[in-house]
Structure formats: C-alpha cells, structure tokens
C-alpha cells in the first residue's frame, strides 16, 4: 500500500489506545448513516453524520452530540 500524504507516517500509524475506538459504531437510523458512540446505558451519542444529503446536516435531531435512545420495538 502506498500512503500519499504530507503527514509523517509515525503520526498516522501510531496507535495510542487500541480500545479507544471500540465504542464507536456506524449505524443507519431512518435512512441516515452516522457514526455513534454507544454508552454503557445503551444510549447512542451522535459523533458524525456520514450522509450525502446536505439537508440531513440541518436536522436539529441529528446534530453531533445529540443522544438517541435505543427503544426495542415489540
């Protein structure tokens, strides 16, 4: 693999904490793909939207930092 970047490789490939990213998950909620952090209480905190629709970024419910609750549907 060729990595083409002005950043030094030791900065990119240095891995501070292997477990740091374990709580980050990619999920699709109502057609919007997003990166969320899962709390121990099973709440989802939005970290980043991965959508290509610019309107999704204006949706107040989908702002980064918002907490979504996982409620099982019966």
């Amino acid at each position, binding site marked *: 693999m060729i*990595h*083409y970047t*002005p950043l030094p490789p030791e900065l*990119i490939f240095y891995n501070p904490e292997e477990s740091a990213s374990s709580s980050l998950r990619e999920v699709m909620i109502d057609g919007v793909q997003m990166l969320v952090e899962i709390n121990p209480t099973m709440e989802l905190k939005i970290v980043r939207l991965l959508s*290509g*629709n610019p309107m999704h970024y204006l*949706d107040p419910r989908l702002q980064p930092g918002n907490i979504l609750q996982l*409620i099982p549907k019966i």
Partner: protein
Amino acid sequence: MINQLQNEQNPSIEEELKKKNVMQSIQQLGQTTVPSLESNIYCLPVIGQIEGHLVMPPQNKTTKYEHVIPQIVAAEQNPKIEGMVIVLNTVGGDVEAGLAIAEMIASMSKPTVSIVLGGGHSIGVPIAVSSDVSFIAETATMTIHPIRLNGLVIGVPQTFEYIEKMQDRVIQFIARHSKVDDEKLRDLMFRTGELARDIGTNVVGKDAVNMGLIDRVGGISDAMIELNRLIKKNKGELLQ
C-alpha cells in the same frame, strides 16, 4: 389546576415542555418517520485521511472508500440527484483509494463541482481536479510532493521503477483532468526549498488557478452557482 394556572402565566415554560416532549418522542427514532428534506445536490465531503485497503488507527479522521464509492454509485443512479458537490479538506491518504474515488467522480454523467477548503494535499489533488469544474478557496493550499513507499522496502533498482510507475498514475490523472501538463507537475513535485520537511511545492489558492491546476478561486456560492448552471445545461434548459 395549579399546573394549569402556572402554565397560563408562563407560556414559555409550557412551550419548552412541549418541545421537550417532542424531542423525547423523536429520540425514539425508528418509530417516528423523519420528514424527508430532499436536496437535488449530493454533497460528498472528503475530509481527513482517505482510508483504503488498511484500517487506520482511531486518532485519524478518515473518509473511507467503502463509504464513498457506493455513495457515488447511488448519486449517479438516483434520478432525484442532479449534481454533486465535492468538498475537500484532506491530507491525502491511500493512493489506490484516492485514485478510485477520483476516477469515479470523473466518470460520472451528472455535473460535478469540487471545492478545496483548507487543504487538498497529495492524493486530494486528483480528487479535486476530477470534477467538471474545480474551485479553491483563497486561503486553501495543496501540497504536491513525491509519493513514497511505507513499510518494508526492498532495496533493488526495481523498487525505484515501481515507485516511478505509481507516481505516473497520479501525475497522468492530474494532467488529464486539469490544465497543468506532465512536465510542469513533475517540476512542482520535485522542487526543493519550498517545503520544510519534504521536497515538492505548496500551492495556495490563486497560485493553483494561475498554474492551471484548479479552474477558479471561489467559495461555496460560486461553486453552487456553477453547479446549478451545469445542471441546467445537462437538462437541456440552457442552450448555448
């Protein structure tokens, strides 16, 4: 009763409560339907590192090719999407992933406009030039420098030939999709005394336009005006 009274005196609190309730019910997403806000433009942000064949450590912000490539396919196929804007603020990354994304954008039938904000370095350059019309913010920069191998490098002459070949892939793509020629690009790439810890050149906003790498200097409104013009032209509404 008391509650009602208080609410009458304080309508703002009541409103606040209502809002809270709405928010709570909305937080149970999956049961409510999100009102669809449609846009005829697809926005493709290329941010951080471009991640390809290798998963990057978590401190890197990445744009993953497994996200971007299907997104481009979907944008091309979706009849509601009429154009695509590519917003770049990237430090480069995997050559194969970057070239794959650039080729996908270049081969789209729908109008595409790219805008470089902040930085569009290394493999960000082919992505920036792959669109129909490219823009760069006045303060944005693009680093053009040689590619290099990471990891174990076998010290034989063939390795050099291999790097040369990989380098040609990038150079030829840029030369084909911008007004810079092969020779000029090589000159920029191997120039010394411009970068602090590498050879190559850092081109800022206007310089990128003057050398023909990027089409125009501009911001989001310029990019949107151009994209809308291209969309109209694509639909046959604009006869020139």
